[in-house]
């Protein structure tokens, strides 16, 4: 009996507040917009049959016809891909250096990586507004050392979005790579070097393949949230920065078109299912390898 309660409470909670809400989103994505509260028809009040017969795929057709949505999905994917790659380029050398640091430093270095993660996400993104703006610190610095003669426009461009994503998601990239490199047996690299590999070749043929799972996990942990990101493109990006999270937010709050916002969400979810499944497979393989 106790076991039933133990299972039922969290199960029902998640069903009611996680799964059923998605069913609602899906239903509304098939509804029509209306000048009513709530602003869509049909609702459950109209009776089940009227409700079911009032549903159609109109909103999805609308999404494929309007350029804006195509461009937003594509540019979200592009921004997420590119910023994941940049995060890897910054994060891998850091994780590698941390794993090679003397034993007594590692706990401190690890804490220094985790600390920003506990600090407000919003504040960390906001910190860049003052740095990247026209009269911001970066421009002041570059003008002062004489690299540029006129201030660069960085804020409200895609470049600022890339910087923001790399900055906020860097810990997610470093931690799994570090834990893979930390477990790596140093004698394997020594063996490779003894057998005539150059340092670089040993790194390429031994270290990289053995940290592969960490790299994959880190990339997914950056890519998946970056794809649906809302705060970073809204705060650092410009009017030209199209990201689907931002489009959804605006469709919902500014245009009050709930059915279209729901359809945008359904498609975003469909796009995300592929990387999420791949990520979980990678995690499972890693868990099995650890046994």
């Amino acid at each position, binding site marked *: 009996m*106790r*076991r039933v309660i*133990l*299972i039922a409470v*969290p199960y029902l909670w*998640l069903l009611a*507040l*996680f*799964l*059923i*809400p998605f069913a*609602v*989103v899906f239903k509304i994505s098939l509804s029509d917009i209306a000048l009513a509260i*709530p602003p869509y028809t049909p609702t459950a009040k109209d009776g089940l049959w009227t409700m079911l017969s009032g549903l159609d795929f109109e909103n999805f057709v609308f999404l494929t016809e309007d350029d804006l949505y195509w461009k937003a999905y594509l540019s979200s994917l592009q921004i997420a891909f590119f910023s994941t790659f940049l995060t890897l380029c910054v994060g891998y*050398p850091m994780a590698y*250096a*941390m794993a*090679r*640091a003397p034993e007594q430093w590692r*706990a401190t270095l690890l*804490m*220094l*990586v985790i*600390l*920003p993660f*506990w*600090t*407000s*996400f*919003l*504040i*960390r993104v*906001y*910190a*860049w*507004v*003052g*740095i990247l703006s026209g*009269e*911001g*610190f970066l421009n002041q610095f570059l003008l002062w050392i004489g690299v540029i003669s006129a201030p660069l426009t960085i804020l409200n461009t895609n470049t600022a979005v890339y910087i923001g994503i790399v*900055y906020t998601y*860097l810990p997610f990239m470093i931690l799994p790579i570090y834990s893979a490199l930390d477990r790596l047996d*140093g004698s394997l*690299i020594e063996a490779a070097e003894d057998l005539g590999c150059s340092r670089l070749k040993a790194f390429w043929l031994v270290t990289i393949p053995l940290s592969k799972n960490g790299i994959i996990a880190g990339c997914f942990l950056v890519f*998946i*949230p970056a794809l*649906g*990101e*809302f*705060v970073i493109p*809204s*705060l650092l990006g410009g009017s030209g920065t199209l990201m689907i*999270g931002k489009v959804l*937010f605006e469709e919902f709050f500014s245009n009050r078109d709930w059915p279209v916002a*729901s359809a945008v*969400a359904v498609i975003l*979810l469909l796009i*995300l299912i592929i990387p*999420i499944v791949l990520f979980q497979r990678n995690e499972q393989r890693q868990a099995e390898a650890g046994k």
Partner: protein
Amino acid sequence: MTRLSPFNVVSLTFGFVFLYLPMLILVIYSFNASKLVTVWAGFSTKWYGELLSNDAFLDAAWVTLRVAVISSTFATVLGTMAAYVLVRGGRFYGRTLFSGMIYAPLVMPEVITGLSLLLLFIGIGMDRGVLTIVLAHTTFSMCFVSVVVSSRLMTFDQSLEEAALDLGASPFEAFRLITLPIIAPAVISGWLLAFTLSLDDLVIASFTSGPSATTLPMKIWSSVRLGVSPEINALSTILIGLVTIGVIAASIASKQSALRAKRDEQAAARAQ
């Protein structure tokens, strides 16, 4: 592997400067006397004074704190239950769906979670306010708690529990006297994680709150959309300071408890 090459040193230095410089600049300029945030005009704490006399910010901070304490407590209870079910629950009908529902919210974009919960609340005619934010935060942070707790449950020696049961403890007593004390550090860090996630959340709170409840991130959001402001810098400094103190205190506490455990082990080994 303890040979740091110059390249390693450079990448670490560059990386940590990149991670910390923006926040450092924010902290320094919160003490700037000028309203212009990029021009230094002398040391002053006037923005802190203005912040503390700003009722809208204080109200929002109070709402946020209440939501965070309540939702992280619920999330810890539900998340620990869920972790126990996942690790020790054996097979039951719909187990795959259950573990899917635990892991999916971890990677779900906030805009989708927020939108779906809002549409549910409107669908069932629930007034939006503090309660709906608490429900939303509990739901997504219980999944984080459950991941943290289940990783601890997986690594601990199950024979301790079995011994307690053999010696006549009821399953509930075994859980309370043996399992809970052992997983306590994970439960506490789960609570802290849920608490910070709730404090930090902007998107889900914006969707699920009504006109009666504004959280601190929502308040910060509406003022930073207009640009950089010294008051927000002051507020950020306070928040960064609190987090830093918290994390340092937690790491000292865990280091000390690890030392104590080691001493106990050594004492036990000597006694044998």
